[in-house]
């Protein structure tokens, strides 16, 4: 059996919770949360901690050297660093509209990288 600590971010209280996990990786017991929503959050955060990736890519624009992008869906947090590296070689060309796909199927995750701004020239 192992224990894991997870801080709930559900509200400003930021409860520190403790999870007891059996050898199969199943959660046996959670303590330290103060409400039902918090318990649910902690369970999800344990099972699959995901985050939206936001970053910038290079441009061929005369107006600005960098352009902001994001993943259209969250990635596993363990994939964030690698995903950020995968974007390092990307260079976009105007015109681009906010929401447009910049890179599809990032690292075979099924997640796309999309533009978060307009770039006219």
């Amino acid at each position, binding site marked *: 059996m192992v224990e894991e600590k997870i*801080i709930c971010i559900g509200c400003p209280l930021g409860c520190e919770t403790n999870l007891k996990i059996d050898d199969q990786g199943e959660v046996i017991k959670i303590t330290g949360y103060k409400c039902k929503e918090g318990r649910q959050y902690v369970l999800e955060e344990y099972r699959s901690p995901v*985050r*939206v990736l936001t970053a910038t890519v290079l441009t061929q624009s005369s107006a600005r050297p960098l352009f*902001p992008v994001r993943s259209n869906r969250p990635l596993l947090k363990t994939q*964030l660093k690698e995903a950020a590296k995968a974007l390092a070689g990307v260079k976009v060309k105007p015109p681009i509209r906010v929401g447009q796909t910049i890179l599809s199927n990032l690292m075979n995750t099924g997640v796309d990288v999309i533009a978060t701004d307009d770039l006219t020239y």
Partner: protein
Amino acid sequence: MKFSDVDVAVIGSGPAGMAAAIKAKEEGAEHVLILERQEQLGGLLHQCVHNGFGLLYFGQDLTGPEYACRFVEKVRDLGIEVLLETMVTQISVDRKLTAVNSREGPIHLQPKSIVLAMGCRERSRGQLSIPGTRPAGIFTAGTAQRLVNVEGFIPGKKVVILGSGDIGMIMARRLSLEGVEVKAVVEILPYVGGLIRNEVQCLHDFDIPLLLEHTVTQIHGEQRVEAVTLAKVDKNKRPVDGTEQNIECDTLLLSVGLIPENELSRMAGVDLDPLAGGPVVDERRETNIPGIFAGGNVVHVHDLVDDVSWEAEIAGAWAARLPQKGDLEKKGKTILRPGRNIRSIVPQTISDQSDVTFYIRVKEMEEKVRLRIGDIYHRAFRVVKPSEMIKVDLLKKELKRLKERTTELDVECEKGE
């Protein structure tokens, strides 16, 4: 547009300026003009490429630029006039406004109403007084954010961040993702300065050490920062002898707070509130100078952009009514007085009997308290924190209980639920 015809002039085009201008136009003001010193609309949002914007306003998790885009589109669709690369240099007590740009030279306006939406700026090293040399490699976190996200320039390879405000934590994550080694985030208080969400997702996710009750006592290096000395602090925030440690780094980022930008307000004779840092306003977000309104970070530093937009809409709506209806009558004036564990309250006065949106910041973290506004409102909180502003909406009918002769209302946190 002739500059002589301006109904509502908005200074600044961040989320506050755009929301105020849009609302003013929607409320029927004919000529609405935004003056912005930068070359594009959006203010700080451009450099905030991370997500976390608009969760409340749009019910969606947007990045800064995405949030800005939605407002920019509306500004265009509504035919709001925009002057970019135009710096407002002066406002007088009688609402004369002077601005300059390289195309028109000096511009003189006499708008019927003005909305101040100049935002805030970061506290710098000068306001902190850390001893040591003055080498290159010391940046405010916001400057670093602009360098990394807009200009494409990484400020260093090994970074220490002083202050655990949201900007500093967000930069810790951003730099880590860019391959920079973030050695530590150092906070003088016993708790984190920013949102809990940012502590978890920006520091814990990247295994960045957070040193609470610590500060930077010395900066080393001749040309460039080579190291900083950290020390633990006691209850009075004074460094404790013998706890010093040296951390090798080439960059120090400062994330030690924001100050509303109010040089223009001062010129116009607008009264400032030393607690909130910005103009004293009433529930319409009108200042003591009739026809001059204010909203967003120029009034007080908000945590969330959603509140910035909402507050500015109040200012914009009332700014639009003035040119249409002339002087708006006000019934009396009640002053809000910050009491136990209250740092600041906006608005500072209420002068009408209309709906009011209050933003309240506490001084210290406290569990199980009851927030009270005179005898007209109270609410129990599991916890209140300086890093999480409290919003209270009071409807006109709830204020009816406010007797006409009431001239002062105490706002305070009472112990116990």
